[in-house]
């Protein structure tokens, strides 16, 4: 058992970690105050492997230059799981990231962490949310074994549970602050593979676009994944991303969302608490989203993080921030997710 680390007064605002699926999104993040920008290569080594998205070597090199000139850091997500026949591809991705001069890689697979730690000892390692480490014992194991410097907490912990983890690890803790929610068994979810034959953990996408069909019927807009009806939206409904975990199904005669409602996480109101308990960084979801989304979310969260750091006691969520975020949220409903579970 590690000695508890007492919470210290924050010496700097929590870091703001923003997504970028394209170079303009990277610029939007950097220009609007992101401390870290995370992104991926154009293949299944990352969990947003979508057509036309992500970075090749040239655009990544330019992106790193741009970010570094403005004092931001670039993190490369290599957060899917290599298979025995594809190991070399993931290994090569680690080498590419290191040779291009990224500031850290975000990794889920223990084998890949071991490789990176051995082959590139200077390269900063972050444990991905896909690593699904929810306890300080697990995080400290990754720290002792591979030297990880930061861990992203899965979105299954309450605030109290996250606080206990932070108090018992020397590793920086990053938590999700905003974005679309999924069923939240990160790194262990194979649900969509039942409909598509592909798992997000190995192919880099919950709902591969080739398996998605949107169809406008006379009475409703239907979304299907691999032929499975995910949801039907009437004229007043707001469609969301067609993932199985956010599907509406008939269960024992009732039609509802048995896994997860299509909502967005928004933890602005928790910022004083998160800062007080020693959270090092706040992550914004959405590498698949547009530069406009990145610009809006980054601007709001930069302002909020700075306001919280200036005066935690007097921090209040501004209605204008909530309006801006609600306007770009999936599902038009924001929740605190697992951070707030009254029954816990």
């Amino acid at each position, binding site marked *: 058992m590690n000695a508890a680390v007492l919470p210290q007064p924050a010496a700097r605002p929590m870091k703001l970690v923003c997504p970028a*699926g*394209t*170079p*303009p*999104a990277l610029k939007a993040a950097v220009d609007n105050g992101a401390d870290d920008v995370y992104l991926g290569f154009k293949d299944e080594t990352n969990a947003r492997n*979508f*057509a*036309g*998205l992500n970075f090749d070597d040239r655009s990544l090199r330019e992106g790193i230059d741009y970010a570094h000139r403005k004092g931001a850091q670039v993190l490369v997500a290599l957060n899917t799981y290599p298979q025995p026949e594809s190991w070399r591809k993931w290994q090569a991705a680690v080498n590419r990231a290191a040779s291009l001069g990224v500031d850290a890689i975000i990794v889920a697979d223990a084998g890949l962490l071991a490789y990176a730690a051995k082959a590139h000892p200077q390269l900063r390692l972050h444990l991905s949310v896909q690593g699904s480490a929810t306890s300080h014992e697990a995080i400290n194991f990754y720290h002792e074994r591979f030297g990880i410097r930061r861990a992203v907490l899965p979105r299954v912990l309450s605030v109290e549970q996250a606080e206990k983890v932070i108090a018992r690890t020397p590793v920086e803790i990053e938590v999700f602050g905003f974005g679309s929610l999924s069923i939240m068994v990160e790194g262990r979810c194979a649900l969509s593979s039942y409909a598509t034959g592909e798992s997000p953990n190995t192919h880099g996408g919950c709902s*591969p*676009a*080739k398996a*998605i*069909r*949107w*169809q*406008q019927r006379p009475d409703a*807009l239907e979304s299907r994944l691999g032929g499975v009806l995910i949801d039907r*939206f009437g*004229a007043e409904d*707001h*469609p*969301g991303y067609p993932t199985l975990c956010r599907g509406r199904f008939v269960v024992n005669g009732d039609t509802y969302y048995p896994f997860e409602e299509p909502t967005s996480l928004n933890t602005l109101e928790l910022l004083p608490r998160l800062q007080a308990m020693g959270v090092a960084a706040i992550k914004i979801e959405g590498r*698949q*989203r*547009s*530069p*406009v*989304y990145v*610009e*809006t979310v980054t601007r709001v969260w930069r302002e909020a993080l700075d306001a919280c750091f200036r005066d935690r006691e007097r921090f209040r969520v501004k209605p204008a921030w909530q*309006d*801006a975020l609600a*306007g*770009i949220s*999936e*599902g*038009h409903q924001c929740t605190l997710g697992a951070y707030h579970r009254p029954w816990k």
Partner: protein
Amino acid sequence: MNAAANAPRKLPGPVRAVGRRLPRMPASIAFATALNLTLRRKFPADVLDRLEGHTFAIVVEDAGVELLFRVRARRFVPVAQAAEPVLRFRAVAWDYATLAAREADPDTLFFNRRLLVEGDTEIALLVKNTLDTIDIPRTRGILRRVLRAAAPGGG
């Protein structure tokens, strides 16, 4: 910003009535020409190759206009008729303009049912992500100024 968060702004009803009576081809020719001038060179060759032979339809709901074009030999070519385009977009002129000016988020318009997309999702995603990658600051600057001037209280 965010222009998408505002209520949709529609062209006056008579515009739609006139638009429906106009021949489709001249509008499609003008649109394809504009695409070739502004976007073609910015589109990666491998993306144009993946779009090769496919026909796209852009329906401007409030103008009563459907623009049709095909990708051929890495160029945008106007089309008079298409039985089944690979993708059909439906939105009002204002929303297309805010998207092009990068004032609106396409997913938000989609969640709000203001941008309807019918057809091949993979190609739709490829097109959306490629457009997100392209920087055309001068064209976007002009569009933003036009939008400001057209907005109520603008000028």
